[in-house]
Each structure stands twice: as structure tokens, then as C-alpha cells.
């Protein structure tokens, strides 16, 4: 199965490649910023692309490290809570893919939107939720992002349209958000994420076609983690060059384990879309450490060695840490301090997520329709039919003093 990996990370045929772990860095004389070289991008129908020489400042270095660590720790906590049976149903973890979300978020500007599939905890955090809100959503508590009504796959923030459970449905939805941006003459983009599995849905083709026809500011982003559930990309995709599969839509292959490459690719892509040239199709070559979901140990279709090898050689957090420390941008102690903070933050979040209350039964009937008269809701039997006691969860929360 290592072939899957090498395929995912195959460098461009005619480009010089600097492996992430041996990346060069130069401290700039005038500032405290440091120059790094990232792995070459592969381009599809583009004459030029993002720079391989990127600059990082100290503040961002600390911020990126913290965010990636928060996601890693939060997902570990979620995995543990699941094993303790405190999280029910679905739970898809993002561990291993942190550089993708944190790197993309770093390039976003006010008003940009994101929509993704079910592996959404990290994005929900980056778009404004606290770790408590996310873990408490997973445990179905009131402190949750949607107070326990959505669970693992359905969390929302301003400009974050979920958390979508039907693989591929988010592709036209994201194009629709971008449609609204164009309609309003907004200079924004909608990052529309999907996995290598969803890359084979017909909806991607449909959405790509209209996005190109109408010049929508949408960036389709395939997070290629090598597997759609347990099916390696070669067994699912006739072409595994996902960045080229928009055909007439230009594409970029990005080392999704390198946050700096991701940030630069997104920064460049945003500029491209802002100039009215969108859409684009990006492929982030990445890896997930856990199984597809918590019910998948993730070892029947790949070896433990493969996972260990990625952890050792390409881990997005370890790799980043080495670079920023070696370059002198931050100190090891500063990062240790962050680790300590993050551990504490997640521990506290777990505490709330496991002790907070759950919505009262009346919430079952809330949020059926927006701005509509009170409805009669049929219960399991005619005798349990009720007039909505509260029309919205907000009203429920107010009634119990939680808002």
C-alpha cells in the first residue's frame, strides 16, 4: 500500500522538488521573518502557479502550530470519548490532515466561505467554534455547536455551511454559495472541500461545469488522503490526478502535509478568483491516521507500518515544528508552552462535553420551519401529537436560562 502514498506524493515530473523535511530556510535580514522553500506544485492548464519560496513570520508560526495542535488534540479526545461510548453514531477524525485546513484558513479573508463533507470538526473550530462547542456537539450536549441537534457531521458557523453528510452533495452547494457571492459582486471565494472518494461523484462534474460556465468564485478542493473509506484511490479513480479532473478548470496539486505550501496555494488561488478568473480545482495530498470513521480500525486495507511511516516522515505538525524551531523563528520552549495550553484547553472542553446537560424533550419539535406559525407535530402515536411548545431551539434555550 505504500504505492498509494508514493502516488499521492508523486512530485512533478519536470520540477525540482525539495522534500518537506529537508526544506531550506533563510532568515530575512530586515525583519524576523523567515523564507522557506516548499515542494513544487503541479499545475494543470496554468502557465504559472503559487510560489515555492514563502515567508513566515513569528506570530503566524505560533498561531499555525497552536491551531494544528488544537485540532490534533481535540480529535484524539474525540476518539477517546468515542471509545468510552460517550460519542454516538458517526465520528470521522481529521488527524493527519491538519495542515490542509489550517493552511487554507490562513489565506482566507473576511467574507470567504467554506463547505465540507463529514470530516468537519477541524474546520468548525477554525471558523469560530470553541473546542468545547465541538466536543460537546459530539457528546450531544447543550454546550454543543448546534446544541446536540447535528452531531459529528452537522456543525455550522458564520460562512461555514457544514458539515454535510451526503458525500458529494456539498460540491454543488459550495458552487451555490459562490454563486451568491458573484450575484452580490462580492470579492470572495467559497472553498468547497471533498475527499478523493467524493471526487468520483457526478455532482462534482455538474458543479464544475456550471462554475466554469458562469465564472463562479469557487475553489474545489480535493483532500486526497489516499482512501475513500477503505478503498485506495487506484481502485476507485480511473485518474488519480485529482487536480486535473476539472478538465477545462485549471488545477493545482499541493503538498497537503505542508501548511506553508497549502497557505501559499490558497493565497494564489484566491487572487486568481478575485480577478474574476475562477473556478479552480486543487488537490491536497494528505493522509489520515485514523480509520475512515471510529468503526473502522483502518488496518485491513493498509498496514500499520504505512501509517507509522507517514507519522515519522510526513507528519504535518512535527514537520512544521522542526522547521520553525530549526530556522530560529520560535523556540522549542514556546511550542512546549503552547502544547501545555492546548492540552489544558481540550481537557476542560472534555469536562464540559461529558458533564453538560442535554436539550429538554421539547427541543425535538423545534426548528421545523423558519418564521412560520406554530405547528402541530404528530408524535409516535396520536396521543403524543403536540403543538410545538417552542418553535426554535433558541426559544428552548431561553426557557431554561441557557441563552
Amino acid at each position: 500500500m505504500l504505492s498509494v502514498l508514493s502516488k499521492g506524493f508523486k512530485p512533478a515530473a519536470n520540477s525540482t522538488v525539495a522534500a518537506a523535511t529537508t526544506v531550506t530556510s533563510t532568515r530575512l535580514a530586515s525583519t524576523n521573518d523567515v523564507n522557506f522553500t516548499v515542494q513544487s506544485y503541479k499545475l494543470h492548464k496554468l502557465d504559472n502557479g503559487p510560489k515555492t519560496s514563502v515567508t513566515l513570520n513569528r506570530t503566524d508560526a505560533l498561531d499555525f502550530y497552536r491551531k494544528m495542535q488544537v485540532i490534533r488534540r481535540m480529535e484524539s479526545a474525540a476518539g477517546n470519548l468515542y471509545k468510552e461510548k460517550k460519542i454516538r453514531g458517526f465520528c470521522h477524525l481529521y488527524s493527519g490532515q491538519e495542515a490542509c485546513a489550517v493552511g487554507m484558513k490562513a489565506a482566507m479573508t473576511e467574507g470567504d466561505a467554506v463547505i465540507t463533507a463529514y470530516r468537519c470538526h477541524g474546520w468548525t473550530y477554525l471558523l469560530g467554534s470553541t473546542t468545547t462547542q465541538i466536543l460537546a456537539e459530539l457528546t450531544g450536549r447543550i454546550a454543543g455547536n448546534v446544541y446536540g441537534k447535528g452531531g459529528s457531521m452537522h456543525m455550522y458557523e458564520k460562512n461555514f455551511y457544514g458539515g454535510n453528510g451526503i458525500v458529494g452533495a456539498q460540491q454543488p452547494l459550495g458552487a451555490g454559495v459562490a454563486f451568491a457571492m458573484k450575484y452580490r459582486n462580492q470579492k470572495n471565494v467559497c472553498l468547497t472541500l471533498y475527499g478523493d472518494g467524493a471526487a468520483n461523484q457526478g455532482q462534482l462534474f455538474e458543479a464544475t461545469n456550471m462554475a466554469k460556465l458562469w465564472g463562479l468564485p469557487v475553489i474545489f478542493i480535493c483532500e486526497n488522503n489516499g482512501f475513500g473509506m477503505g478503498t485506495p484511490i487506484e481502485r476507485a479513480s480511473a485518474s488519480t490526478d485529482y487536480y486535473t479532473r476539472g478538465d477545462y478548470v485549471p488545477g493545482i496539486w499541493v503538498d497537503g502535509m505542508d501548511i506553508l505550501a497549502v497557505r501559499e496555494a490558497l493565497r494564489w488561488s484566491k487572487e486568481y478568483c478575485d480577478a474574476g478568473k475562477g473556478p479552480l480545482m486543487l488537490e491536497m495530498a494528505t493522509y489520515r491516521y485514523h480509520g475512515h470513521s471510529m468503526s473502522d480500525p483502518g488496518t485491513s486495507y493498509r498496514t500499520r507500518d504505512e501509517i507509522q511511516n507517514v507519522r515519522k516522515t510526513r507528519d504535518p505538525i512535527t514537520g512544521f515544528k522542526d522547521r520553525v524551531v530549526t530556522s530560529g523563528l520560535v523556540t522549542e520552549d514556546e511550542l512546549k508552552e503552547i502544547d501545555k495550553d492546548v492540552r489544558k484547553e481540550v481537557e476542560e472542553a472534555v469536562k464540559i462535553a461529558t458533564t453538560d446537560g442535554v436539550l429538554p424533550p421539547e427541543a425535538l419539535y423545534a426548528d421545523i420551519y423558519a418564521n412560520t406559525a406554530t405547528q402541530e407535530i404528530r408524535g409516535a402515536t396520536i396521543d403524543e401529537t403536540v403543538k410545538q411548545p417552542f418553535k426554535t431551539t433558541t426559544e428552548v434555550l431561553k426557557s431554561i436560562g441557557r441563552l
Partner: protein
Amino acid sequence: MRPVSVIFGRFLGRCSSLQASRQLATGSTCTIRDALNQALDEEIRRDPNVFLMGEEVAQYDGAYKVSKGLWKKHGDSRIWDTPITEMGFAGIAVGAAFAGLRPVCEFMTFNFSMQAIDQIINSAAKTYYMSAGKVTCPIVFRGPNGAAAGVAAQHSQDFSAWFAHCPGLKVVTPYNAEEAKGLLKASIRDDNPVVFLENEILYGQPFPFSDEAKSEDFVLPIGKAHVERVGKHVTIVTYSRGMEFSLEAAKELASIGVEAEVINLRTLRPFDFETIKKSIMKTNHLVTVETGWPFAGIGAEIIAQVIESEAFDYLDAPPYRVTGVDVPMPYTQTLEAAALPTTAHVVKTVKKSLHIQ
């Protein structure tokens, strides 16, 4: 197949006070097609967030000419032709609604909406609930629905029960021109996903059209049934084209002294059960009429609700259903006619309920 020439050329009626009408010798009339066109025109003008999207809605003037003239009037930014890609454009429309616009998403016919039903059910209908009210989805999915003429099984069916099954959707089924206009305007102004089921056969039919209905402010409430004809012997509950058979049947029944109360549902979700219940407690007899399939259909739901309610004690006979025949629609004319309910079925069923030989 896109059977675009089947129906729209058949009736050429326009809103006019001069035109001879099947229903009115004098007075103002309007076809369903023109009533819908008016509603779209007015709402697109009224709210910059409203736009129309669908196959052939712009330059072709609409496959069934419902959007005739709108592109010329409102331009590319408001009237969007899409490729033939239902799941894609339905998803784009839903995404645009999440982001605050008010799309009117036309399916050339609801037969094609099955390609997009995941976006309607899983994305549009549920997101408000799943997000605990954080994300709204103000969208109208509209287009012709119901049995058409001579187009065989894939293009001739009623999807009312499919959509009415799902909580979170509003399902609107207008019959006449005033309802078409007033309810479409209400649907576009509604903050929820609305499935608006027009009847393909009725598009060209002229109906009485009051001065009030001509106004830009004419809006009918979603979720309210309308007692179309007051009676005391039997309650006929129906919607959309079922109204045609039911009203004709009521007329015929009146000639033998039976006064049927005809309830036009207008909306299937939210469902106005109170109006039905009240009527049954007066007439003690119930017949439901629909053109869709019987199994798990609208009539089945109505009767189940009646049986579970206090109205059951008022029934003097079992409630009966008049429905489409439980088969896919055949092509040839004789068999097609045999697959659909008629006025005669309604008359016969009412007589059965009332024990009239």
C-alpha cells in the same frame, strides 16, 4: 426526453377580460401559466435576491412558457438558463439559498426532480433543523407535476406524496389561477424550502381572475385549505387537478339532491386538518380524490388522520379514496385514460359512501 411541445401549445389563453372562458361567460380570466408568470415577474421585481434558475427558462422563454418574457425584462442576472444537470443546479440553488438569496429553481417537469431529490430532501429540507436554526433555506422548487398526456410512464406521474412525506418541506399544490399566483408569491416570500407542484395539464386553462388577484400584493396563505363548495352530505377532499373531477362530480351529484362539500387542500404541508375535520363532523362522509398512486398516498394519509381523530366517530360510512390506478402510466390513449380517475369515479364513490344505488 423533454416533451416540451406536448402541452404548452395547446392553450394560448392570456389574462383577459374579453376571452371566452370555459368557466365564465363574462368577467376577467387568466390562465395558470400567466398567473405563474405574473407572480414570478412581480416577485423578481420586488426583491433583488429573487432569481429564476432552470433549464430553458431564459432565452427559450421556458419549456412550458411559464417564464415567457422574463429574461428579456429582467436579464441575465435574474433569469439563469442551466445545462441539463438537475442535481447540480438544484444543489447550486440550495447553496445560494443558504447564502441568503431566494432562488426559484424550476424543474422542466417534476419527473426530472428525482435526479435532484437528495438536494431537496437531505440538503434543503433538513439543514434548518440540523443547524438548530442557524442556516435557513428560502427556496422554491417549482415546475409541472402530475399525469400529462401521451408521454408514458417516466413523464406522467404525481410526486405529491413523495415530497409531502418529508418534514421541513412545505408542499404547495395550487388548482386555479388565483391560487397559482397567490401561493407562488407566498412561496417565494417564505423562509423555508417550498416544493410548488403545478399541474401540467392545467397550464393553459383559463380561470376567473379577480381584480384583487391582479394586485402585486395578492398573496394567499400557505397551510390553509379552502372550502371550494359548501355542502352537507359528503366531504370531498382533493387538490390540484383532482379539483376538476371533484367540482364536476359535485355538480352532477347536486342534480340528484346530493350536496357535496369540496375541500381544496391547496397545501399538503403544513397540512390543514382542522378544515377537513370540521367538514366531516358536519357531513359524516368522506371521499378523497387524487391523481397519484394509492399506496401511501395523500388520500391514505388523510384517512389515517381522520380515523385517529374525533371525526371518526362522526363517520356514517367508511372513508373511500379515488386515486390513480396502481400502475405505471401506459402510453396508448385508451389505457392512459383507464389509468386515471375521472368524474364518474368520484360520483360513483360518493354514491357508495351514501348508499345510493
